[in-house]
């Protein structure tokens, strides 16, 4: 059986793994067979650059694979992130993830851009006289917190509304709710409301 052949392939992480034979029998075969075709090809040694390929199996020799989860929708697709020297160099296909099986929509296929985008916010900013001014973390947090504490003192804890997030980890969401409780208000909400 063709699918059998690929069962004990080296996982990208370097760990040996075994796919459930049932997996291969199902419609999962499609991509799996594509893998067979390609690995078969690699073994047949008919690649143009076969010799060089043998010498160096991957363009990122120092890289390691990190398993992580896509941040776009709630399907929870798996991602293999290839990291070299603390740089996310490549997004790999998590073909063995039980839910996504390597699949991504256009957003997830570009997940690497969340880290590598040049549009990322790079430092704390404050609006001053209608212009954005770069400030230090220390200054930003000091100013924000003293203002918040002033408002709390003057108007009471319910004068602050906290908007938490569905995009952070469960742990972080928990801390957000806890913070509101410790702050002394129930004025906290997040995207699940809408």
């Amino acid at each position, binding site marked *: 059986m063709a699918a059998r052949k690929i069962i004990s392939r080296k996982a990208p992480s370097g760990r040996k793994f075994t796919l459930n034979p049932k997996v291969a029998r*199902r419609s999962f075969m499609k991509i799996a067979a594509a893998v067979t075709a390609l690995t078969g090809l690699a073994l047949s040694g008919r690649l143009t650059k076969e010799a060089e390929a043998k010498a160096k199996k991957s363009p990122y020799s120092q890289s390691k694979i*990190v398993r*992580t989860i896509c*941040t776009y*929708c*709630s*399907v929870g*697709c798996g991602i293999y*992130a290839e990291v070299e020297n603390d740089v996310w160099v490549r997004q790999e296909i*998590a073909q*063995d*993830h039980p*839910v996504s099986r390597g*699949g991504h*929509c*256009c*957003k997830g296929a570009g997940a690497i851009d*969340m880290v590598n985008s040049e*549009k*990322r*916010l790079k*430092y*704390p*900013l404050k*609006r001053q006289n209608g212009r954005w001014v770069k400030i230090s*973390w220390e200054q*930003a947090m000091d100013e*924000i*917190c003293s*203002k918040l504490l002033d*408002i709390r003192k003057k*108007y*009471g804890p*319910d*004068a602050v*509304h906290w*908007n*938490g*997030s*569905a*995009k*952070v980890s*469960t*742990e*972080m969401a*928990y801390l957000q*709710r*806890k913070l509101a*409780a*410790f702050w*002394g208000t*129930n*004025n*906290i*909400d*997040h*995207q*699940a*409301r*809408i």
Partner: protein
Amino acid sequence: MTNHFNDIRHSKLLFFIGSNAAEAHPVAMQYILYAKEVNNAPVIVVDPRFTKLAAKATDYVRIRPGTDTAFLMGLINQLIQNDWYDKEFVRTRVAGFEELKKEASHYTPEVVEDITGVPAKEVVRIAKLLADNRPGTVIWCMGITQHHIGSSNTRACCILQLMLGNMGKSGGGTNIFRGHDNVQGATDMCVLSHSLPGYYGLSDKAWKHWCKVWGVDYEWIKSRFYNKKYMNKPGFTLARWYQGVIQEDKITQYTPIKAVVFWGISSQSISQYHKVKKAFEQLDLVVVIDPFFNTTAAMCEKDNVYVLPSTSQYETEGSVTSSCRQAQWRYKVVNPVYDSKTDYEIMEEFVKRFGFADKFYKNIKKIPEDITREIANGCLTIGLCGWLPERIKKHTDNWHTFDIDTLQAKGGPCDGEYYGLPWPCWTEDHPGTPILYDISKPVAKGGLPFRARFGTEYTYPDGRKENLLAAEGVANPGSEIMGGYPEFPGWKTDKNVIKEAIKRGMAPFGNARARCYCWNFPDPVPKHREPLHSPRPDLIKKYPTYPDKPDHYRVYTRYKSEQKPELAKEFPIVLITGRVVEHMGGGDETRSNKYLAELMPEVYAEINPRLANDYGLRDGEMVWIESPEGGRIKIKVKVTERVDDKTIFIPYSFSGMFMGRSMLSNYPQGFEPYAIGEPANIVTNYGYDIKTQIQGTKECLCRIKKA
């Protein structure tokens, strides 16, 4: 989701209502199409818009926005009238059937046709399809919830599945595809104004339980609040917090809101967005914490705003809960880039300066693992006791060992467990519950009965008494009591009670019937009510909305006084909003990705050729869309037959423009997104769910003018 994505492979029928999975959850489509292809399952899509999902449907039903309950009740009526419902299931596991039958009998196919616009014959046909193909799954999203009767809509869906006997079965269930990657986790942690983590609510008991978990004194927490009343009173919601600032509707809080913190959330997802912008101008302080410079900051045109760069999710770690209640560990990929800080670090900065760091981090030494442990200690109601960081990590590390058909590991370190330990995961060695309310499995192996939350007996208004516990002989295998039983006393606060219950083969929360009649809801049985802004003035009298609610999450919320029949004359077109596959939520992230921005560079309004011709609009022209609340947006016309000639559709993931004005000058140089457009929510209308205050963005009215 009561079931999981992979379980859709076992469905014999797929019923989508208010969901566009092909654009919102593309990866879930592989299971949907599998069921369609291999099981020959009919794919029924009920939607006002011919979505990309409808393109894959076998049966597409075009429905008038805001009439889902009527349609669903029409189906339920057909099931009951024709004896197509699952009698055994109803006899043993459902309560309030008589009341349901009475209410549903009103929704004859003809009545349904009048309300929804779905031909009477079609209603009967769909009901027959549902009855003939079991188990079928019902899938919905925000198309169902974002209505002023959203809570009725969702209940109608559940009741439909109860009637079909599809609950607790592989291939059945009610599967709500949720939006954000961790919205299930964040909801479980109740980042919500009406509850403490684990859906404990805001009662004194809940506060005391959590104070115990946090290791702080209840009195100290109480002292943090304005007074005890405000401790138990639900706070403002995301949908209406801005009313706490601009106070157009009367607020029931001692102080207006003076400061707001936006932590990983975009503001343009709030309806009547022009009013939110007004609120920004009146606030003393706006704090925006986000990996990208988002719209919230750009909309603040006063010197009251701070923007803090948090890291993306890939530069920090923690567990995330996907829609099917399964936890996965999102490992850190790289260290924070630029001068950004992880959310945990920012939280620490806040807490340190607020002066309660020692109390806040009492049990938390190692972040984030110790937080996961604290959650496991506290969230007993949904059975997160088994969610230890090591276990979640083990599952993610070994995700290849799980069977894609059942999501159960075969061999390997997680042998027998279900992927991501779908909650309730009652104990530290519980395998997780892949399918909720499944009584074919022992509770210890992932089975579960219906929860006995509302006592053992209820007397209906007509004097009928009904036992709310499951019928004799209906329980999970191995249960000590073969039949219904009430909840174990103290199970919500004591882990030992849970362990004891599991040992006895029983569910800690009892074994009851699912209610069709929810006496704690404004409409005990779901009932059609015309949208606040209805395009059918003739139906308003027949199906009026609720009376106004003076204190609805601290703000006066209009229902009756907002529903005016004459509005439809001036604003004749129905407006709905929705997702596009290229963008996510408010779109600040995705519009900052050059490839996604290239694919979907601008916002548009989908308009039917007939409507476009009536208004003399051509494809690509600009048009003004105006809402009754005074919001107006200038937007490009896309002439398409996706929508019918009474409806227009706008994707909501755009921002950067505001009522015809570009806000690009408000962005610091170099941080502007690649694509900007008018936020659709400027023109979404007033209207909030009676129970949850979700905004009604799928039942709006508007008018259009050629620009």
